[in-house]
C-alpha cells in the first residue's frame, strides 16, 4: 500500500499555507513533517485525513481497497484529544474501539501499551494532560487502520510514555503500517524520512 499526494496546496483564510507538496509513503515507512510553527504541518495532516479539502493537487492510495477513501484508512490524532471528561478511561477507549470496529483484545492491548490499564476506572476529567494524551494516542491501537496521522503526538508526554509511543510506532511500521507525524521532538525512528515544510509557501 502506498499513500501518494501530488502537488498539494492549501489555502487558509485566503492565505496560501503551502503549495507544490508531493509525497509518497509506502508500507512500513515513516514520514516526519518538520518546520517552524505555522509552516503548515497541521494543515497538511488534516488535508490528508480528509478534514480539509486541498486547494490544489490530489491524494490517493495505491494498492489499497478501492472502496475505501483515504480518510477511512487513516487514524488521525490531532491537537485535541477526543476524550469525554465524564466517561472513565475504559469507557472512552471502549467507545472508540467499538466505533472503529475494533476487538476486545485490541482494547486491552491499547490500554496496556500506553500504561492506562491501572487508570481504567478513573473518569477522564481527573487525568493529567499527559494521561489524556496517552488515552488519545491509544485510539490508534484499538482498531487496525494502515495509515497513522499524528499531529505533535509527544506533547505533554513524559519520557516513559514517549518510549511507549516509540515502541507502538515501531510495531506498527514493522507490520507494514504507514506513519505521517508532525513533530518537534525526536520520535526515535532512525529510518524515518523527513519533509521540511519551512519555505514551501508561495505568496498569497
Amino acid at each position, binding site marked *: 500500500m502506498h499513500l501518494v499526494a501530488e502537488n498539494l496546496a492549501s489555502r487558509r483564510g485566503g492565505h496560501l499555507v503551502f503549495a507544490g507538496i508531493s509525497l509518497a509513503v509506502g508500507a512500513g515507512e515513516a514520514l516526519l513533517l518538520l518546520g517552524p510553527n505555522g509552516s503548515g504541518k497541521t494543515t497538511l495532516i488534516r488535508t490528508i*485525513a*480528509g*478534514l*480539509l*479539502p486541498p486547494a490544489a493537487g490530489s491524494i490517493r492510495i495505491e494498492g489499497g481497497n478501492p472502496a475505501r477513501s483515504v*480518510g*477511512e484508512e*487513516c*487514524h*488521525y490524532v*490531532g*491537537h*485535541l*484529544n*477526543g*476524550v*469525554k*471528561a*465524564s*466517561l472513565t478511561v475504559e*469507557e472512552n477507549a471502549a*467507545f*472508540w474501539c*467499538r*466505533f*472503529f*470496529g475494533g476487538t476486545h483484545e485490541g482494547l486491552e492491548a491499547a490500554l496496556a501499551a500506553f500504561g492506562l490499564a491501572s487508570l481504567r476506572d478513573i473518569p477522564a476529567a481527573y487525568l493529567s494532560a499527559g494521561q489524556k494524551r496517552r488515552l*488519545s494516542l491509544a*485510539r490508534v491501537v484499538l482498531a487496525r487502520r494502515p495509515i497513522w496521522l499524528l499531529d505533535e503526538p509527544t506533547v505533554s508526554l513524559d519520557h516513559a510514555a514517549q518510549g511507549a509511543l516509540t515502541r507502538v510506532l515501531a510495531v506498527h511500521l514493522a507490520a507494514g503500517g504507514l506513519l505521517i507525524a508532525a513533530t518537534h521532538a525526536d520520535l526515535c525512528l532512525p529510518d524515518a524520512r523527513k519533509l521540511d515544510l519551512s519555505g514551501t509557501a508561495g505568496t498569497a
Partner: protein
Amino acid sequence: MSAFLELTRRDLTVAWKEGGTVGVALGFYLVVVTMLPLGIGPDLNVLRRIAPGVLWVALLLAALLSLGRMFETDLEDGSLEVLATGPLPLEAVAAAKSLAHWLTTGVPLTVLAPLLGLLLDMQPEAYGVLMLSMLAGTPAVSSLGAVGAALTLRTRRGGLLLALLMLPLFIPTLVFGIEAVRAASLGAEPFLPSFLILCAISLAALALAPFAAAAALRFQLQ
C-alpha cells in the same frame, strides 16, 4: 449500523452522567407551563383552550435550550474530528446525534407533558393524543435542530442565532402539532389529517436534515 448505535449510546451515557441536559429541559418546561396559568388567571375555559398551544410552544423552547450543545462539546474536545474520520459518514453521525437528542429531550418532555396538562385543566381523554402528537412531532424538532446546531457551531453565543434560525423551521411542526391536539381535545375538527401531516413533516425531516447537517459540519470542520 453498530457504529451508529454506539455513537447514540455514548451520547446517552454522557447525557446521563452529566445529568444537566435532560434536567434543564424538563425544569424549563415545568417552569414555563407553571407560570403561564399564574399570569393568565384562573379562568378554566381560557386555560383549556390554550393548553395545546402552551404545551407545544413550551416544548419547542425547552428543546431549543439543549440543541446548541448537540455538536458543541464534540467540537471542543476534538471528538468531532475523529468521528469525521470514522467508519460512519457524517450524515449518519448527524442522524445518530439527533436520535440521542430526541431520546434525551423529545421523549422526556413528551412524558412530562400530560402532567403539565393537569395545570391547564386539559381533559384526561386528550392526554393520549397529546403524547402521540408529540412523539410524532419531536423527531422533526431534533433532526431539524441538528441542522441549526451544525450551522451555528462556531458562532460565539450562537443561542440567539440558533433560535432565530429554527423559528421558521419549527413553525410547521408547531402548527400541525397544536392542530392535532386541539382537534382531539375540543372535538371541533377531525384529528387524523393534522396528525398525518405532522408525521409527514417528521419523516421528511428525518430523511433530509442529516444531509444538510453533515454539509454544515463539513464546512465547520475546515
